[in-house]
């Protein structure tokens, strides 16, 4: 069992606070992705788990043992770095086997383990090479092999795919997922790429400015973002967010007078409340011009994505994108759309929190589905 418990962890550099009281439980064998923009503190949190950064306040426990005062080597974690951090003066075999050498394992045993790991990560043919003679993807594999050979309780990934080209990234993503299924080790993966997060995670933690915005399974974060930040960060193309004011129980009005119908049963709002209405580009319905409740939009330009088409328009003076299945009719000139009431997300403009059926704002869903 290698569950990780993070309790009220804070990090400050001098007077600058980087993390403000993070509490998070990571289950044994879970694949957790920490997602957030650069500077949100996600890497700092990971490095604190690894033991590379001191914990200013709070406590981190791995497998029930508080590790605050332990050296990285005593924590049973292995880490894959963004720039791989391979030892340039060692061969692939020496790189992979280095941890075992430090641990004092006999040479024969070491060689056997290195060969085994090399087979798993597909590097048997490259064992005698230096890192400088490898491609980006191969270096990534060496870094993974080096982490795997110690059979760690916890795998830590610090944006390991961001130095790879797009195609390789997708491929390595699948390999990491496959590896996790096979090893079932607790994994914490830090990234700023929401697609990576969605595809890899059992659970995603979205961080912003040193705080957890929301934690939960990818699907939940996608369909029910707890905050405007999560809504805008997850999903590509990004969710449309339209600032508006509630003018009636079932109606919001944008600055230029455009009115958007709301389902009064889904949200309890106050008249005059400033909100942001969110709708994902794929949830927008394209309808016949002149249908009831349809908005007529000027098409600015379209992007053909192969399997679909992205139509850029403006609604109420705001940029607005519509995702259209490519098979549908050509969209040119004007486009009539409908905003299905059950696909709308509503956020309080001041707090950024999601407005719910109850009318109460829902706070951070930390460890909602642990």
């Amino acid at each position, binding site marked *: 069992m290698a569950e990780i418990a993070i309790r009220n962890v804070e990090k400050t550099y001098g007077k600058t606070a980087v993390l403000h009281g993070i509490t998070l439980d990571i289950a044994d064998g879970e694949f957790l992705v920490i997602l957030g923009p650069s500077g949100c503190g996600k890497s700092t949190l990971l490095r604190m788990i*690894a*033991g*590379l950064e001191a914990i200013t306040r709070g406590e981190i426990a791995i497998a029930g043992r508080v590790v605050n005062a332990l*050296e*990285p*080597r005593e924590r049973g*974690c*292995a*880490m894959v*770095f*963004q*720039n791989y*951090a*391979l*030892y*340039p*003066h060692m061969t692939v075999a020496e790189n992979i086997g*280095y*941890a075992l050498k*430090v*641990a004092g394992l006999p040479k024969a045993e070491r060689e056997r383990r290195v060969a085994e790991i090399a087979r798993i990560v597909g590097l048997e043919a490259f064992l005698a090479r230096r890192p400088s003679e490898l491609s980006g993807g191969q270096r990534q594999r060496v870094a993974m092999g*080096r982490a795997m050979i*110690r059979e760690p309780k916890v795998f830590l990934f610090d944006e390991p795919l961001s130095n790879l080209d797009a195609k390789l990234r997708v491929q390595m993503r699948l390999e990491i997922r496959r590896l996790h299924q096979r090893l079932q080790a607790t994994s914490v993966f830090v990234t700023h790429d929401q697609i990576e997060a969605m595809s890899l995670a059992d659970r995603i933690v979205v961080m912003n400015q040193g705080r957890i915005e929301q934690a939960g399974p990818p699907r939940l974060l996608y369909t029910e973002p707890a905050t405007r930040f999560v809504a805008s960060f997850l999903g590509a193309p990004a969710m449309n967010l339209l600032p508006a004011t509630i003018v009636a129980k079932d109606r919001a009005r944008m600055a230029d007078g455009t009115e958007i119908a709301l389902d009064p049963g889904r949200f309890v709002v106050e008249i005059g409340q400033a909100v942001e209405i969110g709708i994902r580009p794929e949830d927008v319905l394209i309808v016949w011009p002149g249908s009831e409740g349809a908005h007529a939009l000027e098409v600015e330009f379209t992007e053909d994505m192969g399997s679909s088409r992205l139509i850029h328009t403006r609604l109420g003076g705001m940029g607005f994108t519509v995702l259209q299945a490519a098979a549908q009719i050509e969209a040119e000139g004007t486009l009539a759309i409908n905003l299905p009431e059950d696909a709308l997300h509503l956020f309080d403009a001041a707090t950024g929190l999601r407005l719910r059926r109850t009318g109460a704002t829902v706070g951070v869903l930390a460890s909602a589905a642990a």
Partner: protein
Amino acid sequence: MRDGSMIERAPILNAVTHVLMIAGLLIAAFPIYVVFIASTHDLPTVNRVPMPLWPGDHLVQNYATVWNKSDFGAKMINSLIVATGVTIGKITLAALTAFSIVFFRYRARMLVFWAIFITLMLPLEVRIVPTYAVAADVAEPLRWLVWLFGLELGIAPINLLNTYTGLILPLVATATGTFLYRQFFLTIPDTLVEAARMDGAGPLRFFWEHLIPLSRNNMAALATIMFVYAWNQYLWPLLITTDARMATATMQLQKIVPGPLFGQPPVWNEAMAATLLVMVPPLLVVIFMQGAFVRGLVATDK
């Protein structure tokens, strides 16, 4: 291939560059050529004005004379011991101090760094008198310190005059190597240190298994510089050795120039032969280390 196309478009400039380069080489090489010519003639021929510029037939004789007369075999061995000692001592000291300054965070770190750095401005020649005083009795400063605390321990004097230790130690204590190593260590990415920590390597292991292998080229560059520097030392060995058995090769050169008797002309042919002989070991070191030396100074190869 910008450079290539530049050359194609400027054949005249290219030719001029080459002429300048060859002229520079000739200017640099000519004195050495004269030294060589002078070492191949007998004394009357060398002293003729103008001196001939073609080799004479006394080459073997001059070299044999000077080698035996001045006991260069023993002197060269002394020089070799000193130069090797300085080189090894310097590299060890430089790598360790730079390791401490770059990879550890302690209170007086920057103070230590600046203290070392400032010694760059104090070459041996500037601090030669106090250095001599220390070499004459290493225990003196210690005795002084003890006396400051009102004690009298009767520490025996430690005399380093006429010893290899005395010849080597003051030359080791300079900041150049530390500075070179510091600059190199600063280029090592933090994640490499962290990866080693994650793999369980402690500071000493990191030093031996990562920093030392990675700094091979720097080491070669520093070794070359230090060997030549120590080999060419003149003032310090002259000052600290009174025993002819401890004399170094460069010191011996000076003793050859005047003639055997006062008023006689200097024996230039033998002096020049000796000069060339003394130049050989550092030259061999430079030739042998050249590749690594250049890579170490350019420091792009990591």
